[in-house]
């Protein structure tokens, strides 16, 4: 294997961008060029819209794109999780059918994993898939589905064998969301937003060629999706950087991002808005209250310590040292920070904390913090699951005896 030279790659991208970057074409037309050239996903294989470069070069190419303000391939939502899963487990037919339209942004994807009866225990899914001729027939319910209301395809985990142990009776499919057997309903949260959906499947159809991986080996495929989810960010779309952001292609990208991000406007509030604490202390006069000062200090000590713990984890990684325990603690720390924020915001806001909406402090942002924070310790793995992971993987404590190892049919469930 020859060494890949960074300067050569940069020169190559630059040359290609000079020849091709055009502000006035449609975003789909531009991204089709990206898919064909491989520059949209340089770390992907050459056969599938990439250039086969080492993963580290994605950032190099991205920098060159940013320098000229060029738009990248579509990245919002779960589309890249779908792509990564298909690249690893999909058939050539599936890759051919789906990958390109993922990159161009023509198709939107969603993920049908969680169910009302299986949240933390994802492998306890009871949505069923039964083979009938050339189709799998799907019945059941999924929940917490992001963007299902404008998705074209879904990644579906469903049970195909009820007599096997729970992890060995699941299969993984790509399902067409736009069909009569799929009913997408918004799921309204306690903070009033509806960022997710619940989806009902009634004799929905999946053609046999849309099975990903082998029958009853869906858990392994789902693990690939989840691994990429953990590695990536929260799926929020980020606009192309340092761009002049004019021209048709940018306008279309902007509209796409706004649409994708709209349901998640409350996410900063969910984290507690520690950035507002000192301003609010001065604005409300709480800085004169010795008791509140103590609480503010406690909160800021916690949030600073969490930040430095993350920096320690990154520094160790950069030095090529084995990851210490500090690397597994971020999510749990974030829950503590968010809860402490909600408590201190309430203390500082006083009686006005009983109000919500435009007339309440900071145009309703404070109220939104108070009713959004409970999501942090649940979404993406509850605090309790995080503690189990820390205890079992980091501290190597023994696992609890399991009651769900027999045939799934006889396992107690909701």
């Amino acid at each position, binding site marked *: 294997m020859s060494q890949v030279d960074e300067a050569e790659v940069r020169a190559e991208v630059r040359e290609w961008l000079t020849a091709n970057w055009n502000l006035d074409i449609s975003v789909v037309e531009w991204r089709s060029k990206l898919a064909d050239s491989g520059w949209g996903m340089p770390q992907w294989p050459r056969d599938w819209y990439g250039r086969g470069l080492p993963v580290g070069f994605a950032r190099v190419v991205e920098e060159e794109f940013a320098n000229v303000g060029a738009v990248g391939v579509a990245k919002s939502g779960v589309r890249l999780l779908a792509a990564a899963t298909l690249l690893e487990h999909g058939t050539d037919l599936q890759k051919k059918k789906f990958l390109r339209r993922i990159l161009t942004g023509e198709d939107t994807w969603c993920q049908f994993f969680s169910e009302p009866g299986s949240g933390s225990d994802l492998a306890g899914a009871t949505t069923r898939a039964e083979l009938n001729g050339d189709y799998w027939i799907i019945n059941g319910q999924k929940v917490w589905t992001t963007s299902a209301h404008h998705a074209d395809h879904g990644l579906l985990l469903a049970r195909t064998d009820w007599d096997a142990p729970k992890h060995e009776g699941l299969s993984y499919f790509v399902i067409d969301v736009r069909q009569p057997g799929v009913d997408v309903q918004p799921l309204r949260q306690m903070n009033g937003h509806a960022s997710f959906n619940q989806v009902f499947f009634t004799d929905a159809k999946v053609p046999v060629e849309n099975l990903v991986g082998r029958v009853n080996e869906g858990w392994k495929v789902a693990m690939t999706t989840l691994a990429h989810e953990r590695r990536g960010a929260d799926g929020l779309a980020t606009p192309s950087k340092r761009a002049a952001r004019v021209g048709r292609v940018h306008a279309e990208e902007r509209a796409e991002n706004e649409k994708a991000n709209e349901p998640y406007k409350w996410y900063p509030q969910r984290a507690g808005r520690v950035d507002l604490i000192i301003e609010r202390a001065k604005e409300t006069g709480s800085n004169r209250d*010795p008791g509140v000062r103590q609480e503010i*200090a406690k909160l*800021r000590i916690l949030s600073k310590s969490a930040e430095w*713990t993350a920096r320690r984890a990154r520094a160790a990684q950069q030095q090529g040292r084995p990851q210490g325990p500090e690397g597994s603690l971020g999510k749990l720390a974030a829950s503590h920070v968010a809860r402490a924020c909600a408590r201190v915001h309430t203390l500082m806001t006083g009686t006005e904390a009983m109000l919500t909406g435009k007339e309440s402090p900071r145009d309703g942002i404070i109220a939104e913090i108070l009713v959004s924070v409970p999501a942090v310790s649940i979404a993406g793995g509850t605090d309790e699951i995080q503690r189990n992971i820390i205890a079992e993987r980091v*501290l190597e*404590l*023994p696992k609890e005896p399991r009651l769900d190892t027999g045939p799934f049919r006889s396992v107690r469930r909701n």
Partner: protein
Amino acid sequence: MSGLEKSRVEPARRIQFAFSDEQEQFRTSIQRFLNDKSPPTEVRRLMATAQGYDPEVWRQLSDEMALPGIHVPEQYGGAGFGMVELCIVAEELGRSLLCAPYFSTAVLAASAILNAGMEAQKARFLPDLSSGARLATLAITELDGNWDPASIGTVVTPDGDGYRLEGVKSYVVDGHVADLLVVAARLPQTVGRKGLALFTVDANAGGVERRLLESMDPTRKLARVDFQRAQANLLGNIEDGATSIDRTIDQATIALANEMMGGAQALFDSAVKYAKMRVQFGRAIGSFQAIKHKLADMLLEVELAKSAAYYAAQAAAAQDAEWPALACLAKAAASESYLHTAIETIQIHGGIGFTWDNDTHLWFKRAKSSEVFLGQPNYHRELLMQRWGVER
């Protein structure tokens, strides 16, 4: 000096989030030394003595490891390293609970002399402290137990070339064995931070009466020192007195936070080990979520406070403008974390954790006394807010 290479420890230009390979090796060599010299049996033996340390181990720690002068420049007989290395030593001493006059001599007194002393004074005092030949300590707090230097009431009056010291200092770490006392006192008719300065006093001179107090943590000896017209010499000058005192306390506070996190880690490790070993209801108790989750939370608390202690040490070494505030932050965080870890470690051990024979109480008592030493968490949180510029 094992492990460290001197050329590598120029004052850090920016804050590092990982220790260098040399620093890690340095830590390992201290750990090896302490595993050998300070097992719990030795801690128990020494804590029961009035002297409180083993002079032979102190000599080895000085001669073989060069630890008392680790942060003292080479021209004064030290090893020429800085805050980060001093804090590595402190952390390891806290982990092993070594009974030795290190915090008093190196962290408090040597730092005070470095901060306040004139060239000739540093040259006179520091070589003996760095070599471990003499012991010293710093006396700040008085009978009221207040850690704010503004509250100091001990008075010095000019007398010929020197001064005469009058007052009572308390909670003086290793005050009973120190040869040299560095004392914070004020000129007559001054209040607050005006007129404060540091003075050196020969601990065996006339007019100095020392009494060992019964400390709850027997591994950290405390003394009360009465000064009755004791002869004292000004360390540095009066103008910079308060600044030198603050600086010394802030540095010691950071070192203490690091020492505390070493202790917290030792407790946490023992709790995890016990949870894997102890069987009840036919299972290791560590397989119960009630214990697992407790341990996961303890790990989080320990790592968070450790990050704060490390960051404060790095910031002080880099002379980051924020470092005095970070001293308060690190101490408040370490106090809560260490004590809570100690409480939960006893809890996980169950009944045996409350016995004298079990070692947990040795660290519990260090956690409790450290929580109070140099100021309780509420004191540091308030000071932190002020240092962050959030005025009352």
